[in-house]
């Protein structure tokens, strides 16, 4: 089983977002991590490999610092990594998916895994777009996965329960929290990670140029959310306070 896992490096969940002088999100001094949903995908890939045999390749698009996220996946047990450095190109979901699909099409693959969304932009588009470009099925937001006889049987939560879907391989499956509990990289895994192959590519290596991946969506401006206002404590007897609470929710907050 040849498994490719799409990995994105994102800001740490506790990182403070600030805008630089040009109004763009500043990454200076921010610690970077592997997108937590992608960690579920890496873990699932490793479990399938341990059961079925095979190979796990982790793939990312990003600058040289994105090697750290890939190295973490290698330390967890992935076999090799591919990093496509987009250089100066500005990416949207279309561009990222185009690059990933091109990189994957150079590999052998039976299964492509990824997080269902990244915690930074939260667009939840890239894996689905990769499936579309490669013309293979996709099951999104999966919390259970079985591979049997050339098929993937995936469970996903719906609003009213859960549904079980079957798709032929190769397919793209995106991971939701609950799919598994990612392992800690072992110390030996960390020490071995740097000896594992990390294939660094440029857009030119993939036969792509700025024209072919020119972003279709452009961010015009960023703004930070309003700081959260302090909560309000309503004093008094319970019944009276509840009446006042209902009045405020209706007349002031206008939510009921």
């Amino acid at each position, binding site marked *: 089983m040849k498994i490719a896992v799409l990995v994105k490096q994102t800001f740490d969940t506790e990182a403070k977002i600030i805008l630089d002088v040009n109004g763009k999100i500043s990454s200076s001094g921010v610690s970077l991590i592997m997108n937590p949903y992608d960690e579920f995908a890496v873990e699932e890939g490793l479990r399938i490999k341990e059961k079925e045999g095979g190979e796990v390749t982790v793939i990312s698009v990003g600058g040289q610092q994105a090697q*750290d996220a890939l190295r973490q996946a290698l330390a967890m047990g992935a076999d090799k990594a591919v990093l496509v450095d987009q250089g100066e190109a500005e990416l949207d979901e279309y561009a990222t998916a185009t690059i990933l699909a091109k990189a994957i099409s150079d590999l052998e693959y039976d299964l492509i895994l990824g997080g269902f969304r990244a915690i930074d932009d939260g667009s939840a588009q890239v894996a689905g777009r990769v499936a579309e470009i490669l013309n293979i099925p996709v099951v999104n937001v999966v919390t259970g996965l079985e591979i049997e006889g050339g098929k993937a049987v995936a469970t996903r939560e719906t609003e009213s329960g859960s549904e079980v879907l079957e798709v032929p391989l190769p397919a793209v499956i995106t991971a939701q929290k609950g799919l598994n509990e990612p392992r800690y*990289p072992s110390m*030996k895994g*960390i*020490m071995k*990670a*740097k000896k594992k192959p990390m294939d660094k590519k440029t857009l030119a290596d993939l036969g792509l140029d700025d024209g072919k991946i020119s972003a279709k969506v452009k961010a015009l401006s960023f703004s930070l959310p309003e700081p959260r206002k302090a909560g309000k404590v309503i004093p008094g007897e319970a019944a009276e306070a509840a009446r006042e609470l209902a009045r405020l929710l209706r007349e002031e907050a206008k939510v009921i």
Partner: protein
Amino acid sequence: MDFNLTKDQQMIRDVVRDFAEQEIVPRASEIDKTGQFPLEIVNKMAEMDLMGLPFPEEYGGAGADYTSYCLAVEEITRACGSTGLTYEAHISLGCMPIFLFGTEEQKKEYLTPLCRGECLGSFGLTEPEAGSDAGGTKTTAELDGDEWVINGGKCFITNASYAKYVTITALTDKTKGKKGISAIIVPTDAAGFTIRAGYEKMGLHGSNTTELFFDNVRVPKINLVGKVNEGFKQFLTVLDGGRIAIAAMAVGLAQASLDASLKYAQERVQFGSSISKFQAIQFKLADMATAIELARLMYLKAAWLKDNDQPYSKEAAMAKVFASEMATRAALEAIQIHGGYGYMREFPVERYLRDAKLLEIGEGTSEVQRLVIARHLGC
């Protein structure tokens, strides 16, 4: 000059920090209150190859450097002092003498299962009359044919109840005093060997602290570690390395004191604002953060020297005395910042104080560290 950790060191620190926050922090208070040995945590650490972190892969280790090990010690101790000491004593005292001075056969037989975490490492050095003064050692080992016959006792020995063998020091030549001491590996199931864990301690309640008693304990002659009568020289080397790790433990505890204090100061409101807005509290926090950073730099420097095969004895002593005394001060300040709550067991800071105090004593008291430093100055 380069103050950056290597990629490996960073990843090891980050992974151990994550593990410690998820798996150890939630248990730390209970471990302190019940005195229960953190065996399940140790087993999880073994799964991650932490128990042989700085030793070569051929002996079951992970092949990381000493700096990485010290970073791991800091993160584990930041979560729980008892678990930190268990780990530190396992590697620095339990594994290290065999790794440094053992024969190839001894490394295969004893170091490998230690690195795999199949049992815990333990080192029996201190005796009731032999603390800072190794010349007071009374335990004897006499050759009888192909066997050592050991008699005597040890005190304050970490991890021995969970060890399969303890490396102990004993007089092999009574006429030579501390130059007649040798190190010998003794299986804990040997006839006449009793281990008792009966101490009531101020802190580090989850750490296993024992007394050892030897009543005509017989072990094969080949259990001698290194050369006969070189035990004193050997354990000075072992303790030199251990001191860096104790400094790392102290930094971990002090960091925990700062973390708790900063969080509390930002939440606690008095006189209409959080107390973190008051200079009296800010100065305490700033002093704590500064001292922690200095102590961390010093243990990292000592570890770096060791990793680069340069002399580090003086720096290790400096790191230990500075870091351990700093950790006690940081814990006291943390309690002060917490006010009445800090004195209560509901908050962790009183535990940090009780745990930190041992670091000024174990593996050479602060006074001995100062003697070591003074000797290096040429006194």
